[in-house]
């Protein structure tokens, strides 16, 4: 991680592309964000080693997603298919980078998807994940869950077909990550006269008051409009309901300090159904 990124700056954004169409769809959203943050876009296409292994079996068969027919597979055709898809992904990355005047990089790697994602994440500040899977599923895929659980990087998760949009909600619980989230949001909105809706999470009212004061001090130093909402003694369900009722279209979430079960975070993300940026 570069020094700037320690202060909340984001210089490199990773997008992982694989066989799922959702990952390509997330590319547009990633490019838009990279352009806003003036960051470099790193796209990695992972050739799933499991698929290649499987296709070398003489009995390898694929059930076509489009015709529901069983089709014979072999390693050669599988390699060709993956290469063709990688090539499509490369073109998509190039064209989108040109349109947004982005610096971009495209790599093809082969291996197990979760491992390769984590490996690629080492060099970047932010990982963007589409909701991978075989259907238009709403729930987070296993890879996303793994990244959230294991990667120390910021992560942005898009539900299918959505982009990072205003109004922006930000969850503030007084942690270091909360402050970083504020700085990040401030960077993101620097050219727009937009407001950050800060949702202060506290167990007691006085805590909330203190947290708000803390933010007000920060606001004094930064040119940023902020509105405050308190949630006292919250749980994820109440928080989700509040976010939905306020109609936020994107959310910045600081990574919890206490070791919260990863399922809690992913369940929350599944519930709100808007792009969620997890700040560490």
């Amino acid at each position, binding site marked *: 991680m570069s020094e700037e990124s320690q202060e909340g700056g984001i210089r490199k954004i990773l997008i992982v592309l694989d066989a799922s169409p959702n990952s390509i769809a997330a590319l547009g959203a990633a490019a838009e964000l990279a352009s806003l943050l003036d960051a470099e876009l790193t796209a990695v296409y992972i050739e799933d080693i*499991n698929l290649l292994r499987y296709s*070398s079996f003489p009995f390898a068969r694929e*059930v076509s997603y*489009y015709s529901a027919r069983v089709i014979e597979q072999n390693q050669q055709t599988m390699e060709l*298919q993956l290469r063709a898809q990688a090539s499509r992904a490369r073109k998509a990355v190039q064209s989108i980078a040109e*349109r947004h005047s982005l610096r971009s990089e495209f790599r093809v790697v082969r291996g197990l998807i979760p491992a390769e994602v984590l490996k690629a994440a080492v060099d970047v500040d932010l990982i963007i994940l589409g909701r991978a899977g075989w259907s238009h599923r709403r729930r987070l895929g296993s890879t996303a869950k793994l990244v959230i659980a294991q990667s120390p990087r910021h992560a942005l998760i898009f539900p299918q077909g959505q982009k990072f949009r205003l109004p922006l909600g930000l969850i503030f619980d007084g942690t270091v990550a909360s402050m970083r989230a504020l700085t990040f949001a401030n960077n993101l909105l620097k050219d727009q006269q937009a407001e950050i809706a800060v949702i202060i999470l506290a167990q007691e009212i006085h805590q909330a008051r203190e947290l708000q004061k803390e933010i007000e001090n920060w606001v004094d130093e930064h040119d940023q409009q902020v509105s405050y909402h308190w949630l006292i003694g919250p749980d994820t369900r109440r928080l989700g309901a509040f976010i939905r009722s306020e109609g936020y279209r994107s959310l910045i979430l600081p990574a919890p300090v206490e070791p919260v079960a990863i399922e809690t975070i992913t369940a929350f993300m599944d519930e709100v159904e808007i792009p969620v940026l997890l700040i560490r």
Partner: protein
Amino acid sequence: MEQAKQLDADKLYTETDTNLFNFDTTEELTALSNETLGQTRAVEAMKLGIGVQQEGYNIYALGPTGLGKRSIIQQFFESRASHDPTPPDWVYVYNFKQRHQPNAIQLPPGRGSAFAKDMDTLVEELKSALRAAFESDEYRSRRQVLEQEYQDRQEKALEELQGQAKANNFSMLRTPGGLVFAPVKEGEAITPEQFQAIPEEERKEIEKKMEELQGELQKILQQVPQYQKEIRERLKELNRGIIDYAVGGLIDDIRKKYEDIPEIPSYLDQVEADVIDNVEDILPEEEESPASVQNPLMALMARARGSEENSLKRYKVNVFVDNGKTQGAPVIYEDNPTYQNLIGEVEHVAQMGALMTDFTLIRAGALHKANGGFLILDILKVLQNPYAWEALKRALRSGTIRIESIGQMLSMISTISLEPEAIQLDVKVALIGDRMLYYLLLQADPDFSELFKVQADFEESMERTAENQQMYARLIATLVRKYKLRPFDRGAVARIIEHSARIAADAERLSINVTPISNLLIESNYWAGEYGNGKVTASDVEKAIGEQVYRGSRLRDREQEAILRDIFRIDTSGERIGQVNGLSVIQLGNYAFGRPSRISARVWMGKGNVINIEREVDMSGPIHSKGVLILSGFMGARYAQKIPLAVSASLVFEQSYSGVEGDSASSAELYALLSALAEVPVKQNFSVTGSVDQHGRVQAIGGVNEKIEGFFDICKARGLTGDQGVIIPASNVQHLMLRYDVVEAVRQGLFSIYPIENIDQGIEILTGIPAGMMDDEGKFPEGTINAKVMRRLEEFAERQKKLEAEGKGESLVAAQENSK
């Protein structure tokens, strides 16, 4: 035989008595309600044409231009149309079943545009109402629930399958094209080597299980289209409900308003159904779709093809016949009757380089606009425009108007264009044109007599009775008012009526061709203005006529100059054998003038044939040739009853460099022939006109006034001697409307005009010798012209007989004939 007497001056010009008129100027006269003066026959025909409703009773108005045919027909049609009901409006609407065949709907007059406006309002409200309804949380959440349900169903099945796979140590993996079940060990797909290490029985078990899983997956995926269809149906059902709620009321309002028009409720049902089917096209997308971001051209094309505007355009109403402001039935005159202007057309607009069209681009033709009323067309223009005549006939025959492009009609273009529904046609058509076209169409086009049964034949002149002259004065008053001219006094009116008789070339008839009379009125008014007169007088009219003649008379002046300078040789004094002054008329547009021509004859012994030199060189028209042949008939019958006509003669128009046509010179040719035979000179101070029959009777000719004036002008220029004059057929006296200076010269005895009935009267005047009547023995009195002719012919016959007796006759005559 009675000798011909010269005409009195008062027979040369029939004046209009100003005492007929009890007004001072035309201001006191009431205008004619229409310009049908003298057109009783045509008026009766038009009444029939308008009155008979059966098929084919359309009108053809025949006559030369300038008779006011169009304005008369227009007046008739308009007076009838004002009592007729106003025909319906016609609109074209989108055909939801066959989009290239727009439907036509008829509505009571004025309600077409109201309907269009109502539909426009509906579309406007539709947009906002639908947007409000579809963006409402209620709709969104209901839709989401629906989609969710479908997704969940599939998801659940796949997740179950995944669970099943996992339990059997398989992992369900996604490939670029589908899903596979890979055998796994500790989360990783096993390699073939690892697989080989497994006992065979287990391996078989794995393969079997994998096949089972594949079968299960197939089942799930096979259900996808069914699910999708189901969800579409359910979404549609949801949309229907929400649309009903949002716009049902709006559509119901229109439905109620137009429930008396049978087509509209069902049309509105279709609109409603279409809105439900296409609500996604109607509502604009909130954000750019990924496709449009990646390919701007595609986005542009998509916008052109199926954008919100385009989908809403379907609900527009094209009011292509709007009778909202029409009082009674329409009367349409189509000035430019092209194919498209007659039957309407489907216009196109260029879109992305292609020509596109839709039902809103259907444009009505003259037949649509005149439907339920009357249409006036100029037949010449119709015939000049390709396929217009065919299209008109087809519409009248079928009683419907079908809009087709010429390419479609000729089956030359097979690309899909619109085929608008044909509409019923009920129209009365009047064609205006000249007589020649009428008779040509009657002969050449079998449909014509079926479709245009009423012939309205317009007169060019009318009788010059006292009553008609009074009516004519009112016609003049009407035109004076129409053109906003100074009032015309009695004298001016009389002079115009006299001129109208001159145009009709008949002292007893008046021309009812309004154009030359209107021109004369306007020009007389101009001269009155130039002279500072408050009203137009006879002298202004005289000036205008003089100026008209002067403007058109350049050629006449050159011809006269050529005669006066003896380039064209015309004698106006002295005597010559076998030479007569004939008279011809030269017509230049609407100006005509007379010119004398020298006609000469030579005779010799021969076999009784008259050589028409003009004919020998193909410069003689058929009527002229016929006139010359008649001369042979006359000669033979009169002189060769007892002896052979042993003479040959040649006749020629001297110094004629263009053709000769007409028989008006045949009497002059006969005089020249008789003079040559009788060897009696002809007085050159006379000029002759008139045709002759086989009995020697002289018959009427045309252009008598111009001919007399033509000779008079030459004599006057050389100096009138008092013995000069013109011999004319007696039957032409009624046509005399001579110029004032001619009449004056005759009155003063300086010029004379002799009307004659037969050749003998003419030859007496020309030679001063009696013609001579044949007695019972077939002989003519000695010293007469006929006797001299007879004597000469007998000489020829005797000599020929003598020569034949000597055996030389044949060869001699033949030699003489050959030498000609």
